[in-house]
């Protein structure tokens, strides 16, 4: 058992967890025909069968129950404000399964030339709101109220010592739904992780229907003809949002150090890390000259790199990988789409730069609080 816990602790390290997720993810949610081919060859779509769902639910519940026997796991999972996250994990899994299950079912039906459930012929297939909808609403309201009451009686809302601005807890964590953003603080400065990226998430979400604007594929679950949009959305929602929240909540302890789910939160755990900037790499490590005094000269490499990333990469992609998208969207919408995607990709890129080279900033101008 101890060795099993040790294995779990090891593989939940962000480097391993994130890398394995990254490798598997687009085979499970194929983003294009190539991945789709492999998805079919490896029969990964069985994940969306009823049996797989039951099996996965049982495994998840078993792991959870087993975890509760461990004091360290218990102390973090049963923290009152973390209870919703446990619920979220099960709900997100279940609803991901439910939507993909129906999507594959609908795709198969359409392929066979059959009709789908959501196809209807007005006015014959219409039902009356009273009573067909009203009673469903009524029952869900009662169930929801009962659930909330039981939860409220069973679990007390957390209250700690009175506020004391001079004594900060370690770790100090934001409310759980913002912990994905707080986790990004490891890789970005506050102006990016706390202000620019959250704003861009909002902008990006609003932009979705203006970029993916073909009315076909609306009104029913489907996957085949929406591979790109669904895979991208799933990556953002499941990996960059939900998974980072779980990492930030469960796997980050004192000093924001990494701790496995079965590991004791030792406040003295040391992680000796000296992160260095790109400019230091170039001038000190490679050229051995020391940092130049002129800020522009010092950071010119990072600036070039970033300009290349945002100005040269998009037209390059438009001619190669993203040719079809470019032709469909036109240059204006394509630019918005690709810039949003590239900005989202800076997060995984910065993660790997950190893990592989201890890279801190690509551009570092602390004189003007501009670190990227």
């Amino acid at each position, binding site marked *: 058992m101890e060795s099993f816990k040790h294995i779990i602790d090891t593989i939940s390290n962000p480097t391993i967890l994130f890398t394995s997720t990254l490798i598997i993810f687009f085979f499970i949610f194929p983003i294009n025909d190539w991945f789709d081919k492999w998805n079919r060859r490896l029969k990964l779509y069985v994940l969306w069968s009823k049996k797989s769902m039951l099996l996965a639910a049982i495994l998840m519940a078993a792991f959870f129950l087993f975890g509760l026997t461990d004091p360290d796991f218990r102390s973090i999972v049963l923290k009152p404000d973390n209870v919703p996250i446990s619920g979220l994990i099960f709900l997100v899994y279940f609803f991901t399964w439910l939507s993909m299950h129906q999507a594959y079912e609908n795709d198969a039906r359409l392929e066979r030339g059959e009709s789908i459930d959501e196809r*209807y012929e007005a006015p014959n297939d219409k039902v009356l709101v009273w009573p067909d909808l009203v009673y469903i609403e009524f029952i869900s309201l009662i169930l929801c109220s009962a659930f909330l009451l039981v939860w409220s009686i069973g679990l007390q809302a957390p209250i700690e010592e009175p506020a004391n601005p001079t004594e900060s807890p370690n770790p100090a964590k934001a409310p759980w739904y913002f912990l994905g953003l707080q986790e990004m603080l490891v890789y970005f400065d506050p102006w990016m992780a706390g202000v620019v990226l959250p704003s861009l998430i909002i902008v990006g979400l609003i932009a979705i229907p203006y970029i993916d604007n073909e009315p076909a594929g609306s009104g029913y679950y489907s996957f085949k003809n929406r591979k790109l949009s669904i895979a991208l959305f799933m990556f953002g929602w499941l990996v960059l949002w939900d998974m980072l929240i779980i990492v930030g909540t469960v796997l980050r302890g004192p000093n924001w150090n990494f701790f496995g789910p079965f590991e004791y939160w030792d406040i003295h755990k040391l992680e000796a890390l000296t992160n260095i900037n790109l400019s230091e790499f170039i001038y000190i490590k490679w050229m051995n000259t020391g940092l130049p005094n002129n800020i522009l000269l010092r950071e010119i490499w990072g600036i070039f790199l970033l300009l290349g990333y945002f100005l040269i990469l998009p037209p390059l992609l438009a001619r190669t990988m993203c040719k079809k998208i470019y032709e469909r969207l036109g240059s204006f919408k394509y630019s918005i789409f690709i810039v949003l995607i590239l900005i989202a990709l800076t997060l995984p890129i910065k993660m790997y730069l950190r893990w592989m080279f201890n890279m801190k900033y690509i551009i570092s101008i602390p004189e003007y609080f501009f670190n990227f």
Partner: protein
Amino acid sequence: MLEKFRETQFYKSIFRGGGVPKSRRQRMMVVLNSVFLHLHPVRLPKHAVKLKFTWCMGGLSFFIFLILTISGILLMFYYRPTIEYAYTDIIDLAEQVPFGIMREVHRWGAHAMVITVWLHMFRVFMTGSYKPPREFNWAVGVILLLLTLLLSFTGYLLPWDQLAIWAITVGSNMARATPFFGHEGPGAALLAIGDINFITMGSDARFALIGGRFMGEAALLRFYVLHCIGLPFIIMIFMAVHFWRIRKDGGISTPV
């Protein structure tokens, strides 16, 4: 008895039409005649009442919002947003108020609403329901998501315990780094005339948010007002638009 009561002038004056809706026409009139039910259309495509399709998450989000409004109003009877009283009032809520679980209902309800809003959005995405002609309503929904998170965030400070102030400190410290408008944000130094900076610790975005240089009385009051009046007012406007546009954009999405 009940049948007779339904025939009275009193009953008929409240429920237009009166009687148990039995015929198709009467059932349609129930919806049309009720100010609450007429949020709904009279008839729906059959998949619109299937849980498998809708997950009921949008409806539940709205319902939990109502629960939060009611429990929140009850909490306001007992809670005073000052540093002196806030914490002890919260303790009293559990210990002095008979069957005092209102704070639990409010807190767990808030967590539940964040989750139901996310899942509603997830469902809308997976059924492609954001596509034209519903793209604007999707945008309204995104704003509603943001407002839900802000409501939850502002409420988090009110117990005024260690958990509350440090969570909000972590959050509001981000405002310090806002580009141009935070005193530690990139570009803030550019907003200056000579040696005089316009953006300082006493005039930046964080100062506006918490009403001072440090977490204190002003921050508590600001978050209280935003939580109880400001944000609910804004979210209700957006909710009205959201529900209105569902109907105007053709009701629940159907395959083309």
